């Protein structure tokens, strides 16, 4: 056990730092670009120099780096001011690993380098009005027509569909078998005729997710991933990687920022940080934050030995999201009446971090599997506890009871 860099890791860290410092885009270079253009600019520069998706094989634009090197690069990049490349998260973190597990060589050569370089953005067309937590209840159907499939139905909550080039899609190809057995997995061009995208406004005020309607959309059979009827297994590959890639607990209010706030506001006539109750809460959040960080470190050692991310990664999102929500709420309380002001310009110190976190975290507790589903996963797949009795087992999908919610 050694929490410090080996000589090789130090060398890698220095190389990464030197490259980042020399190549982080300047404001001049980024002038006039919107967030998307900035993200693409930076991602392309990283890819050209071999610093994008470094764990991927060289032939696909990576450098076959270890999980630990990936973390070192992330740590170094966080110290430098660079554009946010979150828009590539679904493509690089979920679509790519699924493609790598199921796509043919030709498709890999075609798509993976473009994912690394940020030329293509991908979205995840999984959830539907009738299938969220219970993803396998989805109804969008695909019917075979020669070498193509014809897709009809509706997806919902599709983040980034409106700016995506490609999508990963699960659909029902056979409604007459039990629900998990009638699904098939595809990838498709988001510019395909018959796709209609309607943004949905979130409580945060942004409109980052969408309804996506499919009317006789044609997808060639060559864009199927896995066998017909094997869509559920393929989806699990995507979902495991989703949990690992969003597992870190995310951005938003953190120990450092809330502590900083507690040092500047008063409670009972003293700096709030001197109050025992405030200290106790902050300490608990630090324990969670450090615990998550070191939990990720521990899984790294396993990943470096070639293991795939397992269900234990559900912890990150489960703990991280709740923690951010509680911290943001507490920070607002510390500010008292002033805390309700949500105005980035006016809030010089924190740029409305706590208020923005407060409004975005409810979504984070739902996206990618709700808190409750995460707890079920831990209970069933990590601890091995039995499933609850289900009303949908062993009967054709068409006979499964449905309610009014969909």
């Amino acid at each position, binding site marked *: *056990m*050694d*929490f*410090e*860099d*080996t000589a090789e*890791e130090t060398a890698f860290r220095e190389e990464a730092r030197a490259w980042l410092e020399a190549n982080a885009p300047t404001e001049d270079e980024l002038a006039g670009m919107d967030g998307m253009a900035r993200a693409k600019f930076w991602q392309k520069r990283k890819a050209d120099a071999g610093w994008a998706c470094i764990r991927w094989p060289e032939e696909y634009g990576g450098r076959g780096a270890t999980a*630990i090197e990936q973390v070192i690069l992330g740590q170094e990049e966080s110290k430098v001011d660079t554009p946010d490349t979150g828009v590539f998260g679904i493509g690089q973190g979920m679509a790519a690993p699924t493609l790598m597990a199921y796509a043919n060589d030709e498709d890999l050569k075609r798509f993976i380098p473009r994912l690394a370089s940020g030329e293509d953005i991908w979205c995840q067309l999984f959830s539907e009005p009738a299938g969220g937590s219970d993803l396998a209840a989805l109804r969008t159907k695909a019917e075979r027509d020669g070498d193509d499939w014809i897709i009809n139905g509706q997806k919902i909550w599709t983040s980034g569909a409106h700016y995506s080039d490609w999508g990963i899609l699960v659909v029902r190809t056979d409604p007459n078998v039990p629900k998990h057995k009638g699904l098939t997995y595809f990838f498709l061009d988001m510019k395909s005729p018959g796709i209609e995208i309607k943004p949905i406004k979130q409580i945060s005020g942004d409109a980052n997710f969408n309804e996506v309607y499919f009317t006789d959309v044609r997808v060639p059979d060559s864009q199927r991933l896995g066998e017909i009827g094997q869509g559920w297994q393929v989806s699990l590959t995507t979902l495991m990687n989703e949990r690992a890639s969003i597992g870190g607990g995310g951005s938003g209010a953190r*120990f*450092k920022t809330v*502590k900083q706030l507690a040092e500047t506001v008063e409670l009972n006539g003293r700096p709030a*940080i001197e109050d*025992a109750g405030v*200290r*106790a809460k*902050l*300490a*608990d959040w*630090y*324990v*969670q934050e*450090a*615990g*998550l*960080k*070191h*939990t990720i*470190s*521990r899984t*790294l*050692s396993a990943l470096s030995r070639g293991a795939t991310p397992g269900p*234990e990664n559900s*912890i990150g999102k*489960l*703990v991280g999201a709740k923690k951010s929500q509680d911290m943001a709420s507490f920070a607002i309380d510390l500010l008292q009446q002033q805390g309700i002001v949500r105005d980035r310009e006016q809030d010089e110190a924190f740029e409305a971090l706590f208020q923005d976190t407060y409004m975005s975290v409810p979504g984070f507790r739902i996206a990618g599997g709700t808190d*409750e589903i995460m*707890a*079920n996963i*831990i*209970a*069933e797949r*990590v*601890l091995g*506890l*039995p*499933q*609850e*009795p289900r009303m949908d087992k062993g009967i054709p999908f068409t006979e499964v009871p449905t309610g009014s919610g969909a």
Partner: protein
Amino acid sequence: MNFEFSDEQNLLRDQARGYLTDNCPPAVVRRVLEGDELYAEDLWKGIAEMGWTATVIPEEYGGLGLSYLELVVIAEELGRACAPVPFGSSVYLATEAILAAGSDAQKEEWLPKLAAGEAIGAFAYSEGGGQASAASLSTTVSGGKISGSKAVVADAEISQLMIVAAKADSGDGCSLYLVPVGDGVSCNHVNTLDPATNHADVTFDGAAAELLGAEGQGWGLLEKLLDRAAVLYAWEQLGGAESCLEMAKEYAMGRYAFGRPIASYQAIKHKLADMYVKNTLARSNAYYGAWALNTDSDDLALAAATARVGSTQAYYYASKENIQTHGGMGYTWEFDCQFYYRRSKVLAVAIGSESVWQDKLITASDQVAA
């Protein structure tokens, strides 16, 4: 970077678990809990023969000269077994105090005995309810004789030496003293939440006391020793928390209500998932604490407080919800759930409670770039 124990350390864990499964089954904990023994002397002898008490003591003093990574592995296993032995007092505290601040003569006299388990050490600083501080000490040392009293000292009655915090001979600082148990030391047994452990109020009436470490610097040394012990206690607490999760899981799988295992009810599942999450985070923090202890890192104070708070909370949660998961059975004397519920609280306050360590954590975080 490498975040795993070595193969040898994992082997040691297997050996320790095997040894305790054979030699410290619940019946041994119950024997001490219900009987007149102050501790399981037979188990203590066995543990000493295994060399566990000698783990980090250098070979020149009869120790094994191993690292703290080996010691934490043993601590976790002792916690798992709820072992009724004075390991914390003697190994995490007294031995550490002599290793950190003892003179050559003190080391030569005491370390071989502590390594062999022939001497048991106790650690006495608190004098009553509430948080102890240097200012509130009323125990004093004058001309090498100690007078005053200490409250609820773990393993005092079975110890051969005590490490005691007292007002310094000269000046107004506090110092640590090494007090061989003999004339002028008397113990008065106190009944506690956990009769599988033993505690006593101790009165010093002119007993011989040798200075341990620099005079007047005792409180700083004490805080350092507590930081080190915090990591070791955190591992022991984690072991207990893991046992609770295992017990709760096993019971929930076998117990049926309304025609199905209670483990299939979400309220139970999510409770156990919560235990797993708390234990996992506590374990990860304990790893970092172990590394910081082993390398004497600048981060030790923060790492120790983090590990301590995490494990204290995990053990409390797991021990109380383990009882809950067992229903009425969990509340019976006959069932073993009580061992962990008792021990979790005894260990939680052993070197300062959760809130004391939460406070230390925030203080330590000022020094370290987060």
